[in-house]
């Protein structure tokens, strides 16, 4: 079985925690005890940052913020072909939640990206993610 979204997300959070802990701290401050559900196609992850290390479950559960997008859109975002705002406007990225919770999620996402681009292990994770897409 190839690398799933849930597995790679879990590994990415562990990498961030080890190498760029201030990014994980910033995500924790932004999300507090709030859980976030992220679904890429039918791969679902529920993330809670309030514990150390972060808790990641591979099921939907219920959460104040629910994010759903196809893998093609996920890759378009990674490759800069689409901005988050345009993906929302075009109805290709779907988010549910109270406005304040969505703003907190956006802040945590920014912290995650800033941590990722400063973390030495992320290029290898990205290669594994792309390889998993080619296997499908």
């Amino acid at each position, binding site marked *: 079985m190839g690398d799933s979204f849930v597995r790679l997300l879990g590994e990415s959070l562990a990498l961030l925690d080890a190498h760029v802990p201030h990014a994980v701290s910033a995500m924790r401050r932004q999300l507090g005890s709030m859980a976030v559900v992220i679904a890429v196609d039918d791969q679902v992850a529920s993330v809670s940052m309030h514990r150390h290390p972060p808790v990641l479950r591979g099921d939907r559960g219920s959460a104040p913020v629910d994010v759903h997008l196809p893998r093609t859109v996920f890759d378009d975002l990674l490759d800069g072909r689409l901005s988050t705002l345009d993906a929302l406007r075009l109805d290709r990225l779907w988010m549910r939640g109270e406005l304040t919770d969505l703003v907190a999620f956006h802040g945590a996402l*920014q912290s995650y990206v800033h941590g990722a681009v400063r973390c030495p292990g992320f290029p290898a994770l990205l290669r594994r993610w792309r390889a998993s897409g080619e296997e499908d």
Partner: protein
Amino acid sequence: MSARAGLAQALARTNALRRGLGAEHAASGRHKEWFHVCLELEEETILCNFSLMERGQRDPAARVALLWRGERWQGDVFGVPLSECTAQAGSLDLGFGENRFWQEGAELCLRVVSPRGDRVLEARLTPLSPPTLPSSIRLGPGAAMHWVVVPRLSARGSVRVNGQVRHFADAIAYHDHNWGDFSWGHGFRWDWGYVCPPDSPWALVVVRVSDGPGHRTLSQGVLVWRDDVQVRTFQDAEIVVAQQGSLRQHIVHQIPPVLRLAAPGSASGVPAETVWRAQGRQDALEIRFRARDHAQVLIPSDDDPSGLTRLNEVYGRYLITGRIAGEPIALDHAGVLEHVRHG
């Protein structure tokens, strides 16, 4: 010594890599070094950049940027694992995977292959004027950047796009080499431009380095060449710079693409127009740059965990008038001006 041998020697002395890979230097954790080339072809302007940058770790990151502006900006910046890199201090021969930038006699040579292999640039650049002596700019306590410029080179080579090859010859190119120990971030910003029209003997480089907010100028200069001779350098108090307006561009080509996620919106801090007025010792120049469009190279800031340094590569028009040593100058030519901003 022939002129060509003298040029080769001048290049080898001034333009060599300052810090190579390996253990020959104690890493400061802040050393940055890069080689920048701009090629003016008939159908497009191409920028390429080889860099080695320490980011607080023992080993630097090796990257190659390849940007081109045809009908629109395209291109990418990509990292190369150090296990695939060779770079020795004291000479110029960078091998970053399939990509290479090196000196061969009196020529600078480069080969860049885009990550998907769909674009390959190969060029040999012959300097038409010798490199400058190294200049230094202090960027803050314990931080400085040094640079060498070759303002005009003649380029020949080829661009292969999706298997189709276009050859070029007698194209005009510009080259600079920068190195120093500093952190990307709040401490400074710079504006750096160059123009070398193919049908004119004149070439100019404009440089201004300011503090982070842009309130205080740390250093500024206007360098002027006529043919292969640097005939005038205006410095600091001889120059007044004015910037006005804001370049509005709905879609900005940003690289690396993944950092678009951290740089939403189109605000860039790029002025619509920048004017340098330089005057002294009976020489005077007005250099007006009208920005047309730009691409951004995004670099995670070293001193701000949620900050980005934006290298705005702005394409526009230089309108230059004035008089140097009694000789009038009137130029109207497209060129590139780089605005580095933090945000």
